[in-house]
C-alpha cells in the first residue's frame, strides 16, 4: 500500500529535528552559511531554504490568526506526487515513482537536462551547480527505509507528531478527521493537488499565506503531454507516408534533382 506523510502544521514547534534527521540519514553536507540561517530567513528565500544539501527545510511564517499574531512552521521538501511530472519529464528514466510512494532519482542515469526542474509543480528540485559533474537533489522519502518497512527519517524523530508516516489513505482520513475536530482550513493540501501527492498538509492558517501553490491544477501533470506522446509515433508514420506519397507523385516522370 502506498505510504505517505501527514504534516499537521499547527503541531510543529519549529525544533527542526526533521531537517537534522534528513542530514544524518542522507549524509548531507553542512554549509556554514545555511546552518546559521533561521526559519524566518529561509521563508524569505527564493528557494524556500532548499538546496542540493538541504532536502528539507523548516520555514517560519508570521501570520495573523483571530487578530492575534502567530507563527507557523512549514516543513518543505519534495511532495512525492502520485503521478509525478519529474518522472514523466525525464527522457532517460532517472526518476521513478515507487509503489510504496517515494519518487526516487538515480544520478547514474541522469543526463542533466534539468527539464524535471522546469516541470516540477512544487519547485523542489535542486541542482548541484557548483559541481563539475552535477546531479539533481531532492528528498527521496528515505526510499530504502520505506522499502524496509521503516518510517522516514524525518517522521521518526518528530517529537510532537506534527509529521506522521503511514498509509496514504489512512492519513487522508485522519487529516479530514483533524480538520473537522480542530477547525482547520477545509483542505488537505496534497489530496488532489497536481493529481495528489504522497505528502499531505493540513493547517489552521490559510495555505496561500505560507507559500503553498494553492492555484495548482488538480490534474496529474503528465496527463498534459500523455496524449501528445502517444499520438507522436502515429503522426510520425502517417506524415512520413504522406511525404513518401507526395514524393513519388511529384517526381513521377521527372528527372531526379542533382
Amino acid at each position, binding site marked *: 500500500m502506498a505510504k505517505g506523510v501527514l504534516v499537521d502544521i499547527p503541531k510543529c514547534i519549529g525544533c527542526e529535528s526533521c531537517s537534522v534527521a534528513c542530514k544524518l540519514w542522507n549524509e548531507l553536507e553542512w554549509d556554514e552559511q545555511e546552518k546559521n540561517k533561521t526559519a524566518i530567513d529561509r521563508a524569505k528565500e527564493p528557494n524556500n531554504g532548499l538546496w542540493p544539501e538541504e532536502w528539507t527545510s523548516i520555514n517560519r511564517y508570521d501570520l495573523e490568526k483571530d487578530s492575534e499574531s502567530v507563527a507557523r512552521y512549514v516543513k518543505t521538501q519534495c511532495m512525492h506526487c502520485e503521478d509525478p511530472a519529474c518522472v514523466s519529464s525525464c527522457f532517460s528514466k532517472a526518476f521513478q515513482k515507487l509503489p510504496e510512494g517515494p519518487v526516487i532519482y538515480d544520478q547514474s542515469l541522469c543526463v542533466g537536462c534539468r527539464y524535471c526542474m522546469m516541470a516540477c509543480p512544487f519547485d523542489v528540485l535542486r541542482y548541484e551547480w557548483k559541481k563539475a559533474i552535477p546531479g539533481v537533489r531532492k528528498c527521496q522519502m528515505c526510499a530504502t527505509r520505506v522499502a524496509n518497512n521503516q518510517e522516514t527519517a524525518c517522521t521518526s524523530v518528530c517529537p510532537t507528531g506534527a509529521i506522521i508516516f503511514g498509509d496514504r489513505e489512512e492519513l487522508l482520513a485522519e487529516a479530514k478527521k483533524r480538520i473537522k475536530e480542530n477547525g482547520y482550513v477545509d483542505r488537505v493540501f496534497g489530496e488532489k493537488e497536481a493529481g495528489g501527492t504522497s505528502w499531505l498538509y493540513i493547517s489552521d492558517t490559510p495555505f496561500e499565506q505560507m507559500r503553498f501553490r494553492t492555484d495548482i491544477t488538480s490534474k496529474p501533470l503528465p496527463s498534459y*503531454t500523455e496524449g501528445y*506522446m502517444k499520438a507522436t509515433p502515429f503522426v510520425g508514420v502517417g*506524415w512520413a507516408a504522406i511525404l513518401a506519397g507526395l514524393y513519388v507523385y511529384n517526381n513521377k516522370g521527372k528527372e531526379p534533382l542533382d
Partner: protein
Amino acid sequence: MELVTTVVSKAGAKKSTVKWKFKMTPMRWVFTGIAAAAIAVILVRFVLGLGATTNLNDQWPWGLWISFDVLLGVALAGGGYGTALIVYVLRRDKFYPIARSAMLTSLLGYIVVVLGLLIEVGQWFNFWRPYVSWGHASVLFEVFWCISCYTVIQILEFCEVGTEKVFKGAHKYLKKAMPVMLIIGITLPTLHQSSLGQLFYLMVGKVNPLWWTAFLPVFFLLSSFFVGAGMIVIESSLAGKALNHKVEIPVLRGLVKISAGAMILYLMLKITDMVVRGTFANAFAFDLPSIMFLSELTFGVIIPIIIAFSSLSSTRKGLIWFGILTVSGVIMNRFDVLFTGMGKYLNQYGGSYVPAVSEFIVSLGLVSIACLAYLFLAENFNILGNHESEHADDIEIKDGKYASTAK
C-alpha cells in the same frame, strides 16, 4: 591568406589530391576570436561546472544556452526541412538553387544545437542514456531522438554533396538513399519542432497564458517553417556579399510568399487560440508580457506578411527587411516563452536570472564556429551552385606539385 592542403589517399601509387581553400578576412578573424574565447569558457565549464560559468540557478534551471542554442537554433535551422519539402517532395524546382545552402545552414545549425546541448547538460558523458533507458513519456525523449537522428540524416545528406568531391565512389549509393533520407529528414524535424513547443505544456501554470496553450506545438512548428524563408534571405544576402553569389529575387520572393502563407495560418490560429482561451485581456493589458506578445506578432508576423504580399518583396531591401523582421520575431517568440512567459512565476519569491557574459560568449562562439564552417564548406563544396571547386581539383591534378603546402 589562403590555406592549401593536399590529401593523399593511401591507395597505391596513384595519388589524388584535393585542394582546400579558406580565405581569412577581417570578419573571419573576428569569428575565430569569438570562437576561441568560447572554447576557453567551455573548458572552464567542463572543469568547474555550470555554476562557475553561468548565472543559472534553482529558479532558472534553463537560461540563455537552452533558449538561444537549442530552442532558437533548432527553429532557425528550420529552413532546411522546409526547403527540402518544397524542393524535393513538392518538386518546386525553381527553388532548387537555394536548396543546398538552406540545408547546409540547417545542418550547421543542428551541429551547433548538439554541441550546445553537450555543454549545457550536467552529465554530458551520459548523453546516450536515453537511447537505452527510454523515458518515452517525456516530450524531451522525442526531441532527443528526433534531433540526434535528424542530425545524422543531415550529415548523410551532406555526404551526398561531399562525395562529389571526396570519396567519390560512395556518391551513387548516397544518391540512391537520398529519397529515404529526405522523407525521414522532413518527418523528424516536423515532429521535434512541434515537440519543442510541447515541452512547455508540461509547465502547467508556470508559463504566461499568452504563450501557454495546447497549440504550442503547432505554433512552434509553423514558426520554424516560416522562419526558414527569413533565414534563407538573410543568409543568401550575407553569403552573397562574402562569396560573391546572389540568389535571384524571384526565387526569394516565391519563398517569402510561401512563408507568408504559413504566417497567415499562424496568425489565424493565434487569434483563434486567444478567442478560445479568452486571453485578449492579457494581450492588451500593456504590461511587459503583453507588449512583448504584441510586438512579436506585429513585427514578426503581420508586417512581414504585408511586405511579402506587396511590391516591397520585389526589392532586395524589402526582402531583407522581411528576413530581419521574421527572424527577430521568432527570436522574440522563443525568448518570450521562456523568459517573459515564465519570469513572473520563477521570480515570484525573489528569483532572478541575467545571463552571464560567459554565457553570451559561448552562444556567440557557437554561432561563429557555424559561420566559419559554412564559409569553409560553401567555398569548397558545390553548395551555392558554382562549380569552382571541381575546377580547382582539375588544376591540382595537372599541376601535381602539391604535397602539403600553405601559403
